[in-house]
């Protein structure tokens, strides 16, 4: 499982980076989204992997941290997801406006070569 997730993170990062280096604004948006998936998974993995141990406390009174997956990275990822959503939206709108003003969907507002 660890290996799978590590590879997944790697592939997502790779595709994201590739797109982020492309010249079209839309590629940028997709790339950053992929990257934020990768980063979210990365953050989650920093709490190590636990199946079937959701940090939702059972009824019984004694709660042993060892029985639950690390809740902190989950909280961090939640924040990251929200912020990621916000910034993706902003970037999208900015590139729309940019295209409206520059007539081009090149990240530099003009065809470079």
């Amino acid at each position, binding site marked *: 499982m660890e290996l799978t997730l590590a590879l997944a993170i790697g592939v997502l990062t790779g595709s994201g980076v590739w797109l982020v280096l492309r010249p079209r604004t839309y590629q940028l948006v997709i790339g950053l989204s992929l990257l934020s998936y990768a980063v979210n998974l990365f953050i989650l993995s*920093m709490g190590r992997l636990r199946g079937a141990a959701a940090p939702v406390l059972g009824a019984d009174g004694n709660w042993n941290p060892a029985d639950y997956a690390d809740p902190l990275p989950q909280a961090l990822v939640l924040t990251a997801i929200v912020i990621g959503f916000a910034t993706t939206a*902003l970037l999208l709108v900015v590139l729309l406006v940019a295209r409206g003003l520059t007539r081009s969907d090149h990240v530099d507002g003009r065809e470079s070569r």
Partner: protein
Amino acid sequence: MAWSQHLIIVPILLPMIAGAALLLIDETSHALKALVSLASTILLLVAGMVLMRMAADVPDGSEALSFSYAVANWPAPFAIVLVLDRLSALMLVLTAILGLAALTFSLARWHRAGPHFHSLFQFLLMGLGGAFLTGDLFNLFVFFEVTLAASYGLLLHGSGVFRVRSGLHYISINLAASLLFLVGVSLIYGVTGTLNMADLADRLPGLADDDRVLFQAGAAILGIAFLVKAAMWPLGFWLTPAYMAAAAPVGAIFVILTKVGVYVLLRLTLLLFGSPAGELTGFGGVALLWGGIATIVFATAGVLASQALGRLAGYSVLISAGTLLAAVGMGDASVVSGALFYLVSSTLSTAALFLLIELVERAREPGADLLAVTMEAYGEEGEESEEREDEEVGVVMPGALAVLGVAFGCIALLLAGMPPLSGFVAKFAMLTGMLNLDGMGDPSEIPGRTWLLVALVILSGLAALIAMMRTGIRTFWAPLQPVLPRVLVVEVAPILVLIGLCLAMTVGAGTIVSYTDATARSLHDPASYIRGVLGGSAPGQAPP
């Protein structure tokens, strides 16, 4: 809990509430919005002053040098703590001053150039306050994002091709940097199991070898994120276009943004990689030093190559960023103290420049920039047909233009680091610190890179002088009948106040330097910070 303790939350809470309330006020009632915004910013300044006094009153040798405020009343390191010490207090006051100046300036016209300017402005202040106060790595990320989000909004305030295009770059790069931030922070958490800076510093020495490697990787990646914000070469190309595209008041307040990156680097390098860090001591210092040097070189060239004043200003920001980074990279207390003085001085002056530019632009005939250079190239055979060549009577300078000219001159001196303004004291303090690490009369050998840095600091000043002189002469001296700029008092006042502060800094240099000295010393004593956060020992207690 004493009321004064709660004061620590004010720099974050006040602008937040103000910003939110401003959203509820109707778009059309500009006056009311301006009033609320202004009131909040003034209160912010007051609060900053009080906090500064609090931080400064802590006697030097005492056990803990920082106040910590556990948000949500959970014990550190589990809770998010806000930490107030001399450094954060200094940054808060600086922010408030800049904010007040920029805001006042914007009241002339900019705050009506688009919706919700004041809210965004307040949120920016909130983000800055949080970034300077927080003692928690992830919370730092959150406040970085608040700051950035607000800065996106403000940068795009007023729209227009140039703003949007440079905004697109600015946003993209900062998004990428934020992702790196997350990777760094989470990696550090994954290895050390904590997010609290003090706790982190506490745990580092006990790190296993494999973990230390991972930690270093995390810290380095985190560092990249900060360096992007601090605009170190080659990660800072976004800065100049963005800042020159921004509206004048926005550009002015943006000057503090790069300083956030520098602040964090200073705070963390000294806290985590200070002397007690064992294996990790001095981690990354060399990179910062050389990166800073490279930044200075590039920015100096940029300053000289700039035709538009806005670009010049942007590169001046880079110069100061590079200088500070290099100073942080050297890391010695004497240098840091000087660097802090320089930070304040350069921030004030560059901000003033950003405000001034707009007014000056109103007084220039188009294309003056280009002329300024070509005329210099062929200055001798400059055709003087229209000029009253041999008229030996001085021309009367219109009042407004004269004021702008004086302000321009002062800023030129500040950037060049020439007397009598604080720019000189700042550079002198930094240089004398570099040459005498253990105070005056320190006989130790001076390494080559220090010489290089000294030379660059001085030469960058010269470059700024030449560039500013070129533009200044072209703007204020060359035109026969100068364009009379329409300038409002609310626009000039903040500029003059900022310059006045620089003058005051020169006169009161002794006081300020003693403050920065104490700050630098406390930064080099991580234990006191850790005690202040974790030890629960209130500041001011004498060591047992």
